Structure formats: structure tokens, C-alpha cells
């Protein structure tokens, strides 16, 4: 390898810059293949990469929720979280809840290697020196409510792990119930969904189902042919409920049933675009059930929604 390189340029001695990064398959660099054992002092073992990966299945990022007050008791609380879904509606809805419900304070976060990292200043308070991260928890002790806001998507292939972490967290904190706010592709609607109220629910708890059906007059998400064109049979009833564009909501619902968790999924059908109207639909739908706010007009737009569609145009700029 050393002799091949010297064909390109006469080497000059520098203090210790002899380490090279080489593409073994690069035909520009080598006339022939490298004899790894003869030429290279540091050759990764053939199994080194897999060993390296195995070792790092443990991660310093821990993948667990951190509570700012470790002694907080959230049993009997409601846990509400957003699924990253079409139009980011779930996340917009959680933003609205956090900014509108008074006395909602940050109470924890999730540092995880499953979520794309982002960091900025506090998304709800202007000129704050607090730092906002990808996944944060907010508590409203008056309403016995914990909200999780997720500001960035999951890394590819990490949904199952993330759902597992969520389910473990819900079990560990003994939440009375959990609610997933999400959305679904409007272009995948069935004929019966094209008109009328655009919100639907799924509930693992029978008493909630009864309340939704009889008192609130809500519609359960209709059964449908799945994406492979099959009408599901009784083999796996959870496949009846198909939420295209709904992120982890379908997996989470399935996991809730398997783990006997009291979970509800609330969704609204939406196209991509300006999704503020659909977000208001969803939070009003949720508020019909929970009555957190007396009037829908009390929803407070958070500062994190500033520049949702980009900066304002500079009026002084000469476009043409």
C-alpha cells in the first residue's frame, strides 16, 4: 500500500500524519488490491464492525425518560403524546395544549438515540435561556396531565424500539390512561369517511368506548382492507385498524392491547399543507372529552408556531 501511494506523489515526513483513510475498492489509488496482513498495521477484524456495533447497543444516551423531580407521582395521571404524523398535526396539537393550559410546566425529557436530535431555546417562552430538546415532558398537576412533545422524527427503523420505551414508561409511571394524538392521510379515506366529522378514535378500554359512542357520539375508526388489499380476518384484530400516515399510533395501539394498557388514539384526516385548522379540530375533539378548556377560543397559539411557513418576506427585497 505504501509503495502504491508513493507512485502518486513523493512522500514528505510530517510529525505523525501517516494515518490514511483508504477506500480499498478505489481503482484510482491502487493498481492491485491491498494485502491487508502485510501492509496495514491497523486492519479492522472482519468481525470488528459487528463487535463494535454489539458493544454499542449499550449507549450512553440511555434511552429513558428523565424526570426533573424524580419523586413525582404520576399514577392516576393522563399521559398525552403526539405521534409524528401527516401534517405534524399531533405535534401541533400538543403544542396548543402546552401553551393553552395554564400551569403547564416542563417536568422532564427523553434523551434517546432513536430520535433525530434538535436543540434550541424554550419553544414557549420568548427570550428564555432554557434549552428545548427533541422529546420533552410537561406536567399540569391541576389537571393531572403529563404531555410529551416530540419535535423531530424517529430515525429510520426505530419505531418498534420507541414504542417499547413509551409502553415501558407508561407502565412504570402507572398512568391511568394514555392518549395518542395523530392524523391520517386524507387521500386514504374510505367512502364513508369523506363527509362528516373528520375525527375518529380507537380505544382499548371498554368504558371509554362506551362513553365515546353513547355520550359523545364519536365514530370509531372504521375497519378496512389493509394496504395489501386483504380484508383482515379474526387472526389479528388489530390489523382492522389501519392508520396510514399516522406514525407510531398504530403500533402503539397494538402494543397497548398486548400490554393491557388503557390507551386511546384520536386522529383527524388531513392532507399536507396548512394544518392549523385540522389541529384545532383535533384539540377541540379531545377537549369535548376532557373539558380542559371551557371555550375553544381559549386556545393560545405558541411562539413555536412563528414562521411555520418560513420567514416573512422582506418588503424591501427586490424580487424582480
Amino acid at each position, binding site marked *: 500500500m505504501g509503495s502504491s501511494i508513493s507512485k502518486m506523489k513523493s512522500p514528505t515526513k510530517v510529525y505523525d*500524519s501517516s*494515518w490514511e483513510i483508504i477506500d480499498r475498492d478505489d481503482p484510482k489509488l491502487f493498481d492491485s488490491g491491498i494485502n491487508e496482513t502485510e501492509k496495514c498495521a491497523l486492519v479492522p477484524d472482519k468481525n470488528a464492525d459487528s463487535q463494535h456495533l454489539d458493544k454499542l447497543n449499550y449507549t*450512553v444516551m440511555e434511552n429513558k425518560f428523565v424526570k426533573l423531580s424524580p419523586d413525582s407521582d404520576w399514577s392516576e395521571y393522563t399521559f398525552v403524546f403526539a405521534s409524528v404524523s401527516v401534517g405534524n398535526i399531533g405535534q401541533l396539537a400538543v403544542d396548543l395544549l402546552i401553551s393553552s393550559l395554564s400551569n403547564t410546566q416542563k417536568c422532564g425529557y427523553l434523551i434517546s438515540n432513536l430520535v433525530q436530535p434538535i436543540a*434550541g431555546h424554550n419553544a414557549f417562552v*420568548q427570550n428564555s435561556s432554557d434549552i428545548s430538546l427533541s422529546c420533552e415532558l410537561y406536567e399540569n398537576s391541576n389537571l393531572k396531565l403529563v404531555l410529551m412533545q416530540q419535535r423531530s422524527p424517529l430515525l429510520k427503523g426505530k419505531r418498534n424500539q420507541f414504542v417499547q420505551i413509551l409502553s415501558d414508561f407508561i407502565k412504570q409511571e402507572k398512568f391511568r390512561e394514555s392518549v395518542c394524538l395523530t392524523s391520517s392521510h386524507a387521500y386514504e379515506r374510505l367512502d364513508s369517511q369523506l363527509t362528516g366529522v373528520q375525527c375518529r378514535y380507537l380505544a382499548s378500554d371498554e368504558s371509554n368506548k362506551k362513553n365515546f359512542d353513547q355520550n359523545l357520539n364519536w365514530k370509531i375508526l372504521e375497519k378496512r382492507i389493509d394496504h395489501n388489499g386483504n380484508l383482515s380476518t379474526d387472526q389479528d384484530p388489530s390489523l382492522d385498524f389501519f392508520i396510514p400516515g399516522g406514525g407510531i399510533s398504530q403500533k402503539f395501539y397494538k402494543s397497548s392491547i398486548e400490554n393491557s394498557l388503557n390507551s386511546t388514539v384520536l386522529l383527524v384526516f388531513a*392532507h399536507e399543507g396548512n394544518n392549523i385548522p385540522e389541529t384545532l379540530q383535533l384539540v377541540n375533539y379531545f377537549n369535548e372529552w376532557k373539558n380542559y378548556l371551557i371555550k375553544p377560543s381559549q386556545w393560545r397559539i405558541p411562539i413555536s408556531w412563528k414562521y411555520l411557513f418560513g420567514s416573512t418576506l422582506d418588503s424591501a427585497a427586490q424580487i424582480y
Partner: protein
Amino acid sequence: MSLFGELQFGFSRAVSDDEDDEFARVEPNLNFKRKIQWLEESTEKIEVDELILADGPISCAFLHVYLLNHLNESEKKLLGLSATNSEFKVFQNDDKTDSELNRMRKNLIYKVDNLNNKSYLVCEVFTNLKSNEFYDWIDQLWERVNFKACTILCSQNQTSYFSSNRQEFPCVKYLSSNKEMATADKCQRLEEPNFLQNLPAAMIQFCVLKKLEFTAFVCYSPSINVDIQSVKETFSGVSGLLKDKNIFKNDDLSKKCLLNVGNLVNSVSGLYM
């Protein structure tokens, strides 16, 4: 509509197709993760006061011009390196000589002792890591090195900066764990709803987890390549904010090196054009 006229489903900016995810194979290039090659084996962790992480070409150029260029061989010790491309591996020449390639395609990690009475670990990450590499890279670093504080340097294109105020570019903003930090003329706080992402954000999350102090500087640049003005502006911002804690030098040597920054950058990135 595709070229053949058939209707294609729209796609969401938020989610990929759900039904593919469960059975999706991770793309082959995502299996490759950059490994940090440490030059010396050690069972003990190296202790430094502060980590300086430069992410991206503007930050790495800044580091080279205003810090590394001023340090001689005895003042900085090469501890480790990684490839600028995750599919490449590390080899050493038998005769331990340098070549043009030696200056290319490497991210270097130096230990600098006794600078302003502190020790530093200086990490270059010239080409941005892929999303599956951020945390892996931090794991590798933390496995070998203990640091008590972190300075992060990064850059973004000006189009990703949101503000209702008129802003001249390039400009430098900061995000810090120090709530008392006073702004400087050339370095204002990163206003909402702007945010950092990728490795800088992953490092910030790590610092929050480990309760380490951090200050992150982001240069919003109008250029898609490295330009001298952005590197200079980064210096103005960083030195203005850090004041007496500033370890970066601006002298004749820096000015001379700054004029060659284009060559430095192209020597690393040219093979990927």
C-alpha cells in the same frame, strides 16, 4: 403523475410509508458507521477540561485558522482520527510517511494541554455525520475521554434562519447552558424558533444528560461552500462572546492561513465532488 401518466400517491413531509417501516431493510450505506481510530490503546479514560467540537467545513476551517495553525507539534497531540466518509477505513503506512492523501479525508482529534491553563480535546468533523452515526460517535468519544465542558461550532445555510428582524449574513448565534451569558455585538442568542440539529444537537443532548456545561455557536452563512467571510465572522462572534476565555488567535499567521482556507477545504472535499 409520473412520466407514464399513472397516478401516484402523495407523500407526507412528516412520515414515510408506515407499512414499509416494519419490514424495511436499513439501506446498506446506513450499516457503515464511522469508527474513531484511537492511536493508543488505553484502559484509562483521558481527562480534559473542555471538548471543542467543530462540525462542518466552516467550523473546521475556523478551528484550523485560529487555533490549530498556531500550535506546534509539541503543543498538540494527535489522539485519534476517523474517516470523512463512513465507508472508508483507517490504515497506516508501513513507513509512517506523509503524502497528499494523508491530509485528505480525515477528521482529526487532538489533545491540547495547557492552553489558558486548561486542557482541551479538539475534534474535527469535516463532513456531517449521517443520522445513524451521531450517537454512536458520541458513545465512542465518551468511552475514551472525560470532559467537563463543551464548546460546539457549527454552521447552517442562511435560508434555515427564521426571524422577522432584518439580518445581515453571515452572522453567528449562540446557545448556552450558562443562563447568565451576556450577548455580544457580533454574537446574539439563537432566537426562537431557530434550532440546531445533527451532531451539534446530539452533543447538546448528551451535555444535558450528563449535566455538562456547553456553549454552541452556529454561523449562518450565505454560501454553500466555505468562504472566508463566514470563517472570519465565526471568529468575531466566538471571540466577542467568550472574551477573556477566548483561546482563538487572530494575528498575521491567521490572516495568511485564512487566505488559503479554500485550498484547505477543497483538499478534503475535492474527491467527493
